[in-house]
């Protein structure tokens, strides 16, 4: 077993490559859970999933079972889904509404804020066991903060605040939420869930990988280099490739990444796309203009970022509008949960269109995501080969520019985003080593 001290960790990550053991070593996975997922800010869920007091959804932070719940007072909390008595999961429903959480094993009950409500048959406990001890609650995750409905939590009592953590990536949340005429989004339109036999980092790398598209998704691209039509009545969608290479406009996309947090994004093509001109869209545009005025509404509808990865576990895609959550299971096993984004205040027909469109691009039976899942599987099998120690992220490394915040900037199909992710990985993994 490798001793994962600071020097060893440093030897595994170089600026343009990472060691293959990052994808296959169970000890590294265990340390990632401890130092990245069970310490720093991670995305837990969205407040539209728990609109009323008593509403809850069960999920995980890293490998720990938790419940995102709106308590009786209306406060959104994240509590551990584990009975303080024997450790059993208290809530085994995916979602629901409750007045109390009741453990099925010995009947202990807990309030929606996680506090112990009652112990069954309490007279069996003697004076040495304090039924009022707060430690007998389910336990609350110490720090829970939301930004425009996106709930993040940190298992560390202290650390950078959420605003500092999100940094410039926060604007990507604004970009999508501002599209809603009511200024809020709704993620309650179901969820696509899939599993792949590969390491979680394969998915978070891929979300902001603009290099793979013409190759991984070749089966969706016609001879003319255009992708299939994604919306009703659309013959073909955007140009993806130009004779085996990424279409020229892709090279103009902004690439940004923060080596301190690991967040990154790929910009949108810098050319204004024609806005649709159908009755549904006109109704939507009128609602947006009524809230913001015509000029600001136009600005909101000008796509700026294609997709953003909030390290380590969430991504927001602005094109096929969705929130994607990466759920590590084991070193070689990962779940991905994909939520369609509906815009509150937009016409129903428009939101229904988003949902339908996402079935095509991102269900487990979709036309896009399935090729990615296959490539993740192939990576996981392939990195066992000892032909090389490394996995490379060197594309565009010479042209990266560091801005005055220490963030990386570049253009096009570079692997800057992944370089930023692994710089952050090394920083997070080394803290406390």
């Amino acid at each position, binding site marked *: 077993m490798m001793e994962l001290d600071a020097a060893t960790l440093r030897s595994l990550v170089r600026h343009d490559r990472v060691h293959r053991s990052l994808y296959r070593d169970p000890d590294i996975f265990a340390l990632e859970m401890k130092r990245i997922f069970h310490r720093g800010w991670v995305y837990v869920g969205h407040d539209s999933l728990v609109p009323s007091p008593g509403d809850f959804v069960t999920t995980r932070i890293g490998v720990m079972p938790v419940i995102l719940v709106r308590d009786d007072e209306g406060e959104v909390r994240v509590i551990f889904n584990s009975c303080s008595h024997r450790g059993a999961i208290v809530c085994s429903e995916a979602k629901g509404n409750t007045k109390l959480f009741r453990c099925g094993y010995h009947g202990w009950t807990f309030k929606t804020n996680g506090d112990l409500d009652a112990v069954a048959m309490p007279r069996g406990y003697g004076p040495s066991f304090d039924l009022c001890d707060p430690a007998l609650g389910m336990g609350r995750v110490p720090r829970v903060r939301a930004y425009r409905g996106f709930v993040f939590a940190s298992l560390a009592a202290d650390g950078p605040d959420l605003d500092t953590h999100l940094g410039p990536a926060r604007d990507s949340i604004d970009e999508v939420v501002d599209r809603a005429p009511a200024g809020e989004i709704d993620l309650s339109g*179901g*969820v*696509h869930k899939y599993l792949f036999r590969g390491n979680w980092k394969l998915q978070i790398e891929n979300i902001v990988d603009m290099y793979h598209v013409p190759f991984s998704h070749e089966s969706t691209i016609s001879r003319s280099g255009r992708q299939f039509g994604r919306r009703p009545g659309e013959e073909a969608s955007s140009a993806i490739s130009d004779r085996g290479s990424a279409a020229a406009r892709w090279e103009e996309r902004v690439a940004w990444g923060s080596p301190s947090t690991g967040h990154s994004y790929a910009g949108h093509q810098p050319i204004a796309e024609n806005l649709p001109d159908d009755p549904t869209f006109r109704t939507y545009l009128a609602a947006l203009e009524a809230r913001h005025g015509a000029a600001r509404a136009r600005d909101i509808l000008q796509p700026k970022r294609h997709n953003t990865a909030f390290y380590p576990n969430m991504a927001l895609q602005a094109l096929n509008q969705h929130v994607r959550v990466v759920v590590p299971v084991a070193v070689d096993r990962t779940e991905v949960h994909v939520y369609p984004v509906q815009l509150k205040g937009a016409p129903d027909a428009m939101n229904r269109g988003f949902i339908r469109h996402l079935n095509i691009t991102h*269900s*487990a039976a979709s036309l896009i*995501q399935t090729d990615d899942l*296959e490539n993740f599987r*192939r990576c996981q099998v392939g990195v066992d080969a000892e032909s090389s120690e490394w996995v490379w992220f060197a594309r565009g490394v010479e042209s990266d520019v560091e801005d005055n915040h220490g963030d990386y900037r570049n253009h096009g199909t570079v692997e800057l985003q992944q370089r930023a992710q692994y710089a952050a990985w090394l920083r997070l993994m080394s803290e406390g080593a």
Partner: protein
Amino acid sequence: MHSAAVALGDRGRVEDFLIREVRLLDERRFEEWRDLFDEDGYYWVPLRPDQTDPDSEASLFYDDRPMMATRFERLRHPRIHAQTPPHRTCHLIGNVTIDAVDGERSECLVSSSMIMADYRVGVKRVFAGRVRHRLRWDGERFRIAWKRVDLIDCDDVFELIAVPF
């Protein structure tokens, strides 16, 4: 008796149609499978038990005929990684009942149970669920007005899926 009424109430004939339908999928004759659907026909696999609406909630499949055409064109692409190598499938249809007959519209509502095993790169899976068809008799043959498949594990995680159920 009118031929439509005969066909719509003939459980043996309906069952034979369903068996032949899924055999087209096992033989990867996807375009012929699509042609069984009427012009306004659709194929729906919900992601939640008792899901009532394919429009307001995400679905595993929700294809009209044009979408099926795009889907199957991709399945024929030489560089479709998700099907290199392809899934092999075996569908089994049983417990077929005709639940309602609408003579006016020459339609019937059919329930069946479905099991599909698939295999690809060392992974064998079994899918099972209840299937409902709305079939139309056009005077010569059945057309599918809609087909809905409720998998027993519809709200679970899935590894990649390529072939309809």
